[in-house]
């Protein structure tokens, strides 16, 4: 699997012969190896032209743009190599069938709850008493079986995530007060980290979906059109505990990020440039981690798990074979 490149400085990114060159505002030049790039993540103020876009298109490299407040602003993705009308038709069919849509929505929630459980269990074994939270998550998992609509499944998801997030104040050191999820804009350090991490998960899922002929706007748990790539929201939920939350815990508990890594203004709290670099470096290292896949009989990277999730969903839609959501198995 190819890797992501993050650009934090302001400046210009351009095609230079057969490479991509970054020219920062102070005139420094850096070259990005396009051959083994999956995507570029632009965090700074960057100029680019159509010549660069065509060049990235030829190499199948996506560009994800992040704006002010770390908000995901959008993606420029390669023109599709292959399209499949059949896939889109099946995707819409499953959306339009209330029973199938509910089943898929419930699967995404079930997988998400499982992956939250894994994190809670990890810390439950390391000096915390999260028994009651684990019980509540178990109860959510059971309640899901009775959820008759997508809305109910969504409600269960919200309840589970609230219970799960209540463990964060105990897992993280005292000076990192969380007190529940707030965004637009994030009001404290922990929320700011979760927002940034989740937007990275989301952008990576956009790339993964693009590797299939799935339409990123047709989704099951989230309403289509809620955001442009609502299918990426469905799939990203499964991976937030594995990718975002573990990185947050690790960096904060090891003092690699401190309260000095953030800037507060008015009612928002955001990572500094240095903090963003630290986070995305650890995030990329996490994506590159591998795990033995029980069925493929080889090691796969966490990043490839995202791609496989898109494959699995597509396979279900085309063949009717059961979709089993990603649940951390190690």
């Amino acid at each position, binding site marked *: 699997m190819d890797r992501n490149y993050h650009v934090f400085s302001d400046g210009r990114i351009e095609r230079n012969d057969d490479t991509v060159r970054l020219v920062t505002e102070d005139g420094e030049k850096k070259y990005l190896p396009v051959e083994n790039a999956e995507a570029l993540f632009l965090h700074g103020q960057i100029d680019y032209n159509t010549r660069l876009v065509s060049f990235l298109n030829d190499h199948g490299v996506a560009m994800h743009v992040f704006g002010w407040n770390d908000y995901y602003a959008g993606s420029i993705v390669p023109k599709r190599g292959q399209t*499949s009308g059949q*896939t889109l038709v099946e995707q819409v069919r499953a959306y339009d069938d209330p029973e199938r849509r509910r089943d898929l929505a419930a699967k995404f929630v079930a997988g998400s709850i499982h992956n939250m459980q894994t994190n809670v269990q990890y810390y439950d074994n390391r000096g915390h008493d999260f028994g009651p939270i684990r019980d509540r998550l178990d109860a959510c998992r059971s309640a899901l079986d009775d959820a008759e609509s997508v809305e109910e499944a969504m409600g269960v998801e919200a309840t589970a995530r609230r219970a799960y997030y209540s463990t964060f104040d105990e897992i993280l050191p005292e000076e990192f007060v969380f007190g529940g999820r707030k965004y637009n804009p994030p009001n404290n350090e922990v929320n700011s980290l979760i927002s940034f991490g989740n937007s990275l998960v989301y952008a990576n899922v956009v790339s993964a979906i693009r590797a299939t*002929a799935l339409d990123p706007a047709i989704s099951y748990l989230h309403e289509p059109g809620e955001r442009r790539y609502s299918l990426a929201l469905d799939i990203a939920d499964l991976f937030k505990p594995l990718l975002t939350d573990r990185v947050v815990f690790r960096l904060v508990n090891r003092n690699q990020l401190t309260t000095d890594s953030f800037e507060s203004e008015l009612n928002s709290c955001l990572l500094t440039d240095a903090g963003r670099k630290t986070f995305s470096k650890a995030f990329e290292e996490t994506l590159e981690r591998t795990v033995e896949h029980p*069925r493929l009989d080889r090691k796969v990277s966490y990043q490839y798990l995202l791609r*496989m999730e898109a*494959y699995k969903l597509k*396979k279900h839609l085309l063949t*009717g*074979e059961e979709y*089993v959501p990603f649940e951390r198995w190690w």
Partner: protein
Amino acid sequence: MTGVMMQYYEVCERELWFLSRDVEIDRANPAVVRGTHVDESAYDEKRRNFSIDGTIALDVLDSGQVVEVKPSSSLVEPAKLQLLYYLWYLDRVVGVEKSGVLAHPTERQRETVELTDENATRVEDAIRGVHAVVTSDSPPPAEEKPFCESCAYYDFCWSC
């Protein structure tokens, strides 16, 4: 019906069903890269590509024989069926009688293939078989085969 469908039918019906539904293959797969390279580089000067009725594309050597080039002889029967289908199509649809050559350039091996009555029956059975697979609503279930790991649909098929 294309020649590749014939080949897939013999190799793996599930693969054929995926192909018929435009499931994209993993073009970075080493076996796919190798096959494309061998096909593009072998007998380059001595063969010409013909497209017939917009359905089948075959290669003809200077000698007038239809040639099918494969990187290895490990899946010889599927390749033979594909070639026989071309010969059958030329004979029964276009009205030209040809013989064929199955070539494995990397192994320096060639085999002559003729459309006998027995082979024609085999092609006709396979045509019916392909039709049954591609018109089915779902693919045959996944089944572990010795060559699964080199298949371009491997991850798609077995990611679960």
